[in-house]
């Protein structure tokens, strides 16, 4: 990998980079005066941004991860750079390419308006536009990249939103010529045709421009039978899509409605709903919705009639079409109608939508009578859209009844999303919520029932519980069963944190179900009946269900939370300790009067019955053992998964996460934040498992084990019980060994874990024979070694984070000689190939700076705030340590870093420092000393890319002088812009498009 000596091989300036940015606030000396850099044209100030920070190239290209900006249209970037800086005068389109009927039938543009044309379009772009239009109209010059056309259209939208479209057309007659050219029978590319249709729509969105185009009959020709609609080009989906989107843009005013009615577009849109291209079909539906909304707006703000019979003809036609589709037998037609309605109710909340729903709801309800129910997913979407619509009074239009009916008719798989949607609604009747919740719980209840020791709860009618999975035993296929369970778990998990979550929340039932599912998947469940055995066969080793159940189990550790129900293990245990009388009649000891909710008849029965927990969790044993046993079961199943050699790495990771969440929520000993005795017992079982996992041949397992260890140490590292258990195990020693793991991710996690262990004083000095004789290395040395030698970025980044944290926490290894530590780390970090390491180095520098200057860190490091307390000593004295650790050398170098985030961070740091020192007096800046000049000269060379020369020892006075001479605010502003802002200008876009087809021929050689 090419790396310059001492990391100074920053990028060289190269042609096309743009001018050097005006970094300096004032010219301190002649060579530094960069303000005379010529600017380019009117937008020169924009173009004069730091090209040096635009794209990292030249230096160590492989060392950095790709970032989004590096991925942005490389072709465009290359072409842009190969252009000369001055805008070329665009060639006029060749005569042969000019359409001969360009402006036929259109009124002549008004010359009087030309004076304000500058408001609508940049003159440079206006200059380029005719050439571009000529290119687009020329079938011999195909546009290779249709993203350019999209960008162009976006730009036109911006321009027309800012000003008059009519003026734009008048100012740029080439646009009209382009549109007219589309009408000629020729072999035009479908992309260009589509673009033109969409452009026409964008322009005609303004009524005056619409009228203007109408006068020339351009619109009927483009969108009517005479245009692409009747031609061969119509076979291209792009053209059909362009036609629809053009009309979608165009339909903004009553005139457009007349036009649509006149040219029979609505019928075409109806037919396009069934288009073979899904995009076209979807867009056609959206357009119908839009036209319906537009036609119902009525003339000049008059509210539409609430009698459907009085609605405008266009609206009636669309509604009639929807009705007809809803009555159809073909599912695709019904789906289209439902989708149109869903969009309508989702976007429009006017009173007329209620009339529409009242009119159509019988038809929608009629769909439920069919078997199977057609387009069930779309139906669910529609009903939820209607229910969420604030324009509808749900109670008066029978929506709740329809929803209840739908819930009972749909299959469990289809009903799940509807049930979730209903439960998320704010003002839904309790009975419907209960029904919806029952649907979500059904699959889990079925699992519990299948695992029951006896045939079933006496109070649970067979037709209710478990219908979802037992219907027509044997059970459905494995795929269906797994899908249903995963969805059910996911829905319930989504519901868990919501305030409108059902109350009562059957925490124990859900815990029992999650544990049972995990036991089924792991093979440890012992079903007593055939159904359970069959379920066991279906779910055994199913990773999908394992993952979903572990996620859900983890989420359940937060429990029902706040006020209403028992939630966390702590709560469950507290409930367990309640006197029996409190729990009597409370089902599984959930602590709420289940029987008082009449809407849960079967859940009520199930809760009383207790599923597989019956007997163990029965009321008689509730006082202590019930909930405790449930929590014990949770930990047992988690331990089973952590132990099992068959747990896949992803399952294991989720098991670790769930374990951590449950440990977090385990009850605390009063007055102490340590783990409770039961959790400590669990920990004693867990640590041997963790030990083994740290030795796993699978790196993912080692990695997630280390992450888990880090989390645990972070939370309980200070607690005696945890410390004792951890130190008695081999875990710290194994973690230390993983610093040398062959897998970089594992090394990085080991670094973080060791950092955490060390912070908590949990690092054990190596006791192996190889470490005897006082030769052991301290962790600090080991980490520094990793930082300077590791070939991968992740461990080095992790080391920097650990060091920063150590510095922040005044870790013992660091506090001894902080300056030496910081100096060493910054020296290594400055030479690192990874920009994130360098950025983290700046973070460390900032911490050191704050500590040195004695200021508490503010959230906004560069905010100019008056110092709350004065520095400990004189400023020079305060700055001395910074100079000694060569912090400025590092920061200045980073200021010109080819990676923008590093430069930004450095800029922020220096601004912060300047703000700190601004109010301090007593330090004379040596503005004209030779030292300052040499430093500035060196910095100028650095900026130019030559970072070979070090700055040498800096004095605080010199630093301050240099600091004030830098235009850091300007640089920060420049850096805040994205690196490709120059390329994103419309002018650049037009140039790129022209360059692609070779009209701008002068740079042809550069393209190769």
């Amino acid at each position, binding site marked *: 990998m090419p790396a310059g000596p001492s990391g100074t091989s920053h990028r060289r300036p190269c042609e096309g980079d743009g001018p050097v940015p005006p970094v300096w606030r004032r010219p301190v000396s002649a060579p530094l005066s960069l303000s005379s850099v010529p600017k380019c044209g009117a937008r020169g100030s924009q173009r004069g941004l730091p090209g040096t920070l635009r794209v990292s190239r030249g230096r160590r290209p492989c060392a950095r991860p790709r970032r989004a900006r590096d991925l942005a249209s490389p072709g465009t970037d290359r072409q842009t750079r190969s252009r000369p800086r001055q805008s070329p005068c665009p060639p006029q389109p060749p005569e042969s390419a000019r359409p001969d009927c360009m402006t036929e039938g259109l009124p002549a543009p008004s010359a009087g308006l030309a004076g304000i044309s500058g408001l609508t379009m940049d003159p440079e772009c206006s200059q380029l536009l005719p050439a571009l239009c000529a290119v687009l109209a020329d079938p011999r010059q195909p546009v290779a990249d249709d993203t350019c056309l999209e960008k162009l259209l976006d730009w036109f939208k911006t321009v027309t939103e800012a000003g008059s479209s009519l003026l734009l057309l008048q100012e740029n007659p080439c646009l009209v010529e382009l549109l007219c050219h589309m009408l000629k029978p020729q072999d035009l590319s479908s992309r260009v045709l589509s673009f033109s249709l969409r452009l026409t729509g964008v322009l005609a969105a303004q009524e005056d421009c619409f009228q203007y185009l109408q006068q020339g009959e351009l619109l009927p020709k483009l969108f009517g039978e005479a245009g692409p609609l009747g031609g061969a080009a119509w076979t291209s989906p792009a053209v059909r899509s362009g036609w629809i989107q053009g009309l979608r843009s165009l339909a903004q005013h009553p005139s457009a409605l007349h036009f649509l009615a006149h040219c029979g577009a609505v019928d075409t849109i109806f037919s396009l709903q069934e288009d073979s291209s899904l995009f076209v079909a979807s867009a056609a539906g959206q357009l119908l919705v839009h036209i319906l909304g537009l036609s119902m707006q009525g003339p000049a703000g008059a509210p539409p009639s609430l009698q459907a019979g009085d609605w405008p003809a266009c609206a009636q036609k669309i509604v009639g079409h929807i009705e007809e589709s809803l009555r159809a037998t073909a599912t695709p037609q019904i789906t289209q109608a439902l989708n149109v309605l869903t969009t309508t109710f989702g976007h429009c909340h006017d009173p007329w939508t209620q009339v529409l729903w009242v009119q159509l709801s019988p038809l929608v309800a009629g769909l439920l009578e069919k078997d199977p129910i057609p387009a069930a997913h779309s139906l669910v979407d529609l009903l939820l859209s209607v229910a969420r619509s604030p324009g509808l009074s749900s109670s008066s239009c029978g929506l709740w009844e329809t929803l209840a009916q739908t819930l009972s008719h749909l299959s469990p798989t289809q009903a799940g999303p509807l049930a979730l949607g209903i439960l998320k609604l704010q003002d839904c009747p309790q009975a419907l919520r209960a029904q919806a919740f029952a649907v979500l719980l059904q699959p889990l209840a079925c699992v519990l029932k299948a695992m029951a020791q006896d045939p079933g709860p006496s109070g649970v009618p067979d037709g209710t519980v478990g219908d979802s999975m037992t219907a027509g035993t044997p059970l459905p296929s494995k795929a269906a069963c797994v899908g249903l369970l995963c969805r059910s778990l996911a829905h319930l998990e989504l519901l868990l944190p919501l305030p409108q979550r059902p109350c009562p929340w059957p925490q124990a039932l859900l815990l029992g179900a999650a544990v049972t599912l995990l036991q089924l998947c792991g093979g440890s469940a012992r079903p007593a009946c055939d159904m359970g*055995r069959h379920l*066991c*066969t279906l779910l055994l080793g199913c990773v999908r269900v394992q993952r979903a159940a572990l996620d859900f189990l983890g989420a359940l550790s937060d429990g029902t939370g706040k006020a209403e129900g028992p939630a966390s293990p702590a709560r469950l245990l507290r409930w367990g300790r309640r006197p029996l009388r409190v729990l009597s009649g409370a089902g599984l000891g959930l602590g709420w009067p289940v029987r008082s909710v009449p809407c849960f008849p079967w859940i009520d029965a199930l809760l009383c019955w207790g599923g597989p927990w019956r007997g163990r969790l029965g009321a008689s044993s509730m006082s202590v053992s019930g909930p405790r046993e449930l929590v014990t079961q949770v930990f047992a199943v988690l331990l089973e998964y952590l132990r*099992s*050699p068959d747990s896949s790495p992803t399952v294991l990771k989720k098991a670790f996460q769930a374990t951590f969440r449950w440990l977090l929520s385990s009850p605390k000993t009063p007055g102490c934040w340590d783990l409770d005795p039961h959790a400590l017992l669990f920990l004693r079982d867990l640590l041997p498992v963790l030990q083994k996992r740290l030795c*796993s041949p699978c790196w993912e397992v080692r990695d997630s084990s280390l992450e888990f260890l880090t989390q645990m140490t972070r939370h309980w590292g200070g607690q005696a019980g945890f410390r004792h258990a951890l130190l008695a195990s*081999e875990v710290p020693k*194994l973690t230390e*060994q993983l610093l040398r793991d*062959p897998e970089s991710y594992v090394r990085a996690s080991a670094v973080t874990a060791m950092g955490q262990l060390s912070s908590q004083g949990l690092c054990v000095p190596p006791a192996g024979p190889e470490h005897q004789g006082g030769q052991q290395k301290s962790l600090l040395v080991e980490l520094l070694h990793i930082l300077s030698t590791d070939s991968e970025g992740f461990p080095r980044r992790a080391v920097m984070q650990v060091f920063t944290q150590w510095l922040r926490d005044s870790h013992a290894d660091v506090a001894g000689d902080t300056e030496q530590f910081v100096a060493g780390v910054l020296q290594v970090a400055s030479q690192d190939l990874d920009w994130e390491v360098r950025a983290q180095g700046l973070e460390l520098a900032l911490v050191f700076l704050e500590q040195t200057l004695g200021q508490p860190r503010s959230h906004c490091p560069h905010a100019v705030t008056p110092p709350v307390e004065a520095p400990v000593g004189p400023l020079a004295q305060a700055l001395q340590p910074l100079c000694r650790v060569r912090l400025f050398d590092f920061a200045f170098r980073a200021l010109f870093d080819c990676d923008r985030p590093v430069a930004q961070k450095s800029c922020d740091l220096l601004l912060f420092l300047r703000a700190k020192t601004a109010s301090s007096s007593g330090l004379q800046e040596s503005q004209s000393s030779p030292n300052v000049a040499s430093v500035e000269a060196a910095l100028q060379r650095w900026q130019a890319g030559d970072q070979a020369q070090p700055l040498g020892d800096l004095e605080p006075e010199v630093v301050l002088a240099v600091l004030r001479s830098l235009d850091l605010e300007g640089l920060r502003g420049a850096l805040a812009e994205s690196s490709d802002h120059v390329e994103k200008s419309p002018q650049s876009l037009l140039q790129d498009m022209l360059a692609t087809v070779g009209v701008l021929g002068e740079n042809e050689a550069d393209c190769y």
Partner: protein
Amino acid sequence: MKLYCLSGHPTLPCNVLKFKSTTIMLDCGLDMTSTLNFLPLPLVQSPRLSNLPGWSLKDGNAFLDKELKECSGHVFVDSVPEFCLPETELIDLSTVDVILISNYHCMMALPYITEHTGFSGTVYATEPTVQIGRLLMEELVNFIERVPKAQSASLWKNKDIQRLLPSPLKDAVEVSTWRRCYTMQEVNSALSKIQLVGYSQKIELFGAVQVTPLSSGYALGSSNWIIQSHYEKVSYVSGSSLLTTHPQPMDQASLKNSDVLILTGLTQIPTANPDGMVGEFCSNLALTVRNGGNVLVPCYPSGVIYDLLECLYQYIDSAGLSNIPFYFISPVANSSLEFSQIFAEWLCHNKQTKVYLPEPPFPHAELIQTNKLKHYPSLHGDFSSDFRQPCVVFTGHPSLRFGDVVHFMELWGKSSLNTVIFTEPDFSYLEALAPYQPLAMKCIYCPIDTRLNFIQVSKLLKEVQPLHVVCPEQYIQPPPAQSHRMDLMIDCQPPAMSYRRAEVLALPFKRRYEKIEIMPEVSPAETAVCFQLADALVPMEIKPGISLATVSAVLHTKDNKHILQPPPRPAQPTGGKKRKRATEDIPDCKVLKPLLSGSIPVEQFVQTLEKHGFSDIKVEDTAKGHIVLLQEAETLIQIEEDSTHIICDNDEMLRVRLRDLVLKFLQKF
């Protein structure tokens, strides 16, 4: 067709198939779990073992204390270990024509069969099976012979006494048939009867059946067998694997369309996933060694050890174990490691291609080169001088009853730093450890069994779709310890037939067809005759797709082959020797009656009868057809689907008349 089941062990099968006059033995596995009832054979004198107290009956009777010793509540036989042989009484083993061997684990009883039963047939096996099988036998003989034990206990085998013993001795089966290990001489003699075969090679057995070995993917040279005649196909699946380990992948396609599929040798630990177990093995190994402990891996000298060494080759560097020595101690260690590298054609594709690079197929060659893996024939000699700890030792025998492993158990058992990791699934690790109790060293059970599990079997059966499946009884119900696991059994339609030790199974299999050739080999002089015979065949379509032809020929049956020869020429009027010879050679053929086909429409038949003057005709319907009663003539015509009978009293004229009327309705050819 019958199947004689001589072994009760599902993974060490020994069955005899009688099929088309051949007697084929399928495998001859040796059940060595019987050795778990015996005390270990220590290489060096073990004071602990030799001082174990003798066992006495509850009433204090100590007459067995010389034969039985007590250790931590278990009773062991203090004698040379003995093995449980396959059943020898169920069938006369001298009548066995051939023995087909599936893999080297399933041939360990071979010397007992070939040397002591009057067996005079041939044994078929692949080359790696024979070579590695020889190594296993050699190791076994070596382990037992090098620790001579004078004492041979037999008193306890007395049925009346055995009843008084504690479990598991009390429940041991067929103890009277248990035998001591064979000798090397017997091994050599047995192996000399083996004929080597290659995959897909077709071997004719007496012209009656053809047997073909197919790759089974389990071990080097392991095979499944196809036993087929022209119209029947029996597949014998024993010890197969679908995992991508070192052997050639399993050939499933050739098993299709079997009439019977005999399924043995499935995984013994269906709940343990081999991948997970290898992970456990590595983790526990690293954990022990990092703590300064030693790892003992009781194993066979071939098989999974190759895969374990390969895994360790990849793992040891990542786990920082490069400096830890790995020792492989076995009398046949060297041969095993070297053999594995030369059987390139029997390896999986990846390993085969390495040979052409050229590179050794297994990476243990590199481990040996870099001195990370060292192998020794025994504890004595070089090993003692090279030995350093902590280390990892691979050695046999997995039963922990003989071999170098006994010494290491005695040596390392007292320290909790050390770990014994069981990877071979053949023996219960708890029973194996019983005579070493109390034991301080850690015990890890990571059974690695790559043979088919029940999910794979289910897929396999769906794929190959045999008409009938035959398997050991253990496979048709979940394991006793996991009775709820309905997935741990064979589930197929029709349900599998099961067998147990000493059971004879009549396979649901009817032979309906034989292949008959028309003069396959014809001398030039006889060509014309042959053509005559073939020309005489004039097929006539009876119904769409089915044609019939009559042929008149002489059927010759010899060596289970059936040949049609042209009929003799009509007898010449010339007398003398020539005619006599012709008569001797080929019997005279009478003029053949035509064959009839078709059915008789009763109504039309009755009309015809009336037309021919019969009156007073009565028709009765019967279960099989009709009876036409000519009351006046006192004659009965019984018309059934495949026969017509004319019953009349001695009126031959009438019968012939009626016959001719019946024949009018039938086709003749």
